[in-house]
């Protein structure tokens, strides 16, 4: 069974998107990067991201991630913001009752795309 299936598949991603996005928008340190974006489209992108870090079906390419975040890196997006996002991901999973070892697996995947997102 894949990690994605173990976590509950699509239904769990849907539950996670609302909690995760709400946490991110409540955090003034990172919320400004999400200002003026279409919330529904953004939720779609977060769903794709969470599906990927859960180990679910995806067609992830580092190039897309780089292109998609370049304008944010230009605005100052850096490692400290990324740490905030990882922390929100951690607490989202904890709120959903995911065990510590599984949370660590997800965080490891999310951390592996850091260099692409931050255009390093």
């Amino acid at each position, binding site marked *: 069974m894949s990690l994605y299936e173990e976590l509950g598949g*699509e239904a769990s991603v*849907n539950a996670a998107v*609302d909690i995760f996005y*709400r946490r991110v*928008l*409540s955090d003034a340190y990172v919320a400004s990067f999400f200002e003026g974006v279409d*919330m529904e489209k953004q939720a779609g992108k977060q*769903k794709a991201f969470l599906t990927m870090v859960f180990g679910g*079906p995806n*067609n992830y390419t580092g190039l897309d991630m780089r292109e998609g975040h370049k304008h944010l890196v230009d605005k100052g997006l850096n490692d400290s913001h990324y740490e905030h996002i990882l922390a929100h991901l951690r607490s989202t999973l904890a709120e959903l009752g995911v065990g510590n070892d599984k949370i660590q697996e997800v965080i490891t995947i999310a951390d592996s795309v850091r260099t692409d997102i931050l255009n390093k």
Partner: protein
Amino acid sequence: MAMITYKGESYTCEKDETVLVCLLRHKVFIPNACQSGVCQSCMMKAVQGTPPKVAQTGLKDTLVAQHHFLACICKPEEDLEVSLYDSSKDWMLAEVLEKSLLNESVVRLRLKPQHKIDYMAGQFINIKGQDGTSIRSYSLASLPTEDYLELHIKRVPGGLVSNDLHDMVAVGDSLSIMGATGDCFYTNRDQEQPLLMIGIGTGLAPLYGVIRDALAKNHTGSIHVYHGSLATPGLYYIDELRNLANEHESLSYTPCVLHGDAPEGGQQGDIQSVVRTDFPDLKGYRVYICGDPQIVDSIKKQCFMSGASMSDIYSDPFDFS
């Protein structure tokens, strides 16, 4: 093997092949990205035939109701005729049956289209201005069961279409219309869910359709309607909404005005604060928000932060120009 028809051409879909792969293989370009049913960039609409249920995984109920599906995870079990999600419809003429002022700056038009329009209450149509080039969208306040299309048109200073509709167009004239589209409408997926409807100005138009549609479809959960305006003269349909609230115990109606006295049963204050105070916790609610885009976006965010799920928020930001 199923046949896929797109833009009048038919293509053979191989066994286990998806609609997306089939079309791409035939050098028909369809926008796509994740190819795994997540990003929704390859969304298409089934014009004929039924796509397998799994091809609608994750789509909002309003999109499912309009037969949309994701081409990248659709392995057809029968012949399908498909179109792109935003495929344009045909222009047709509609006769003005009735024209009356709802308040100092909003006129109500009732139109009889040349051909019957298939629509859901709350969707919008496009209207061509008298200059033949300007196009504006207007929400439908009518129900598909009524034999006219009803629009509420606010006069926009310098507006190319709204001023024509206010000043030039008369009963008996014909207008060029096209429609209907939009996904701000009622579906009866959960008839017990409490509904919160927030309309600013002529944002009431689609909601007036959605409210009556929900009641006609026997929605049993509570329905809270808030209509906001700068001052009382900017409100309209006060009696109609009060009557609906009297007839239906589940329905409440709250007019809100920023300045001056609110009508009886209403509140004075900005509609966003009023809603925030009245609904501190929106978990489990379905929310509809229509009107000026800046207020809509801001209230949308507030409702999400107050606990409404993103998939339970329907909005229609009006672009006034």
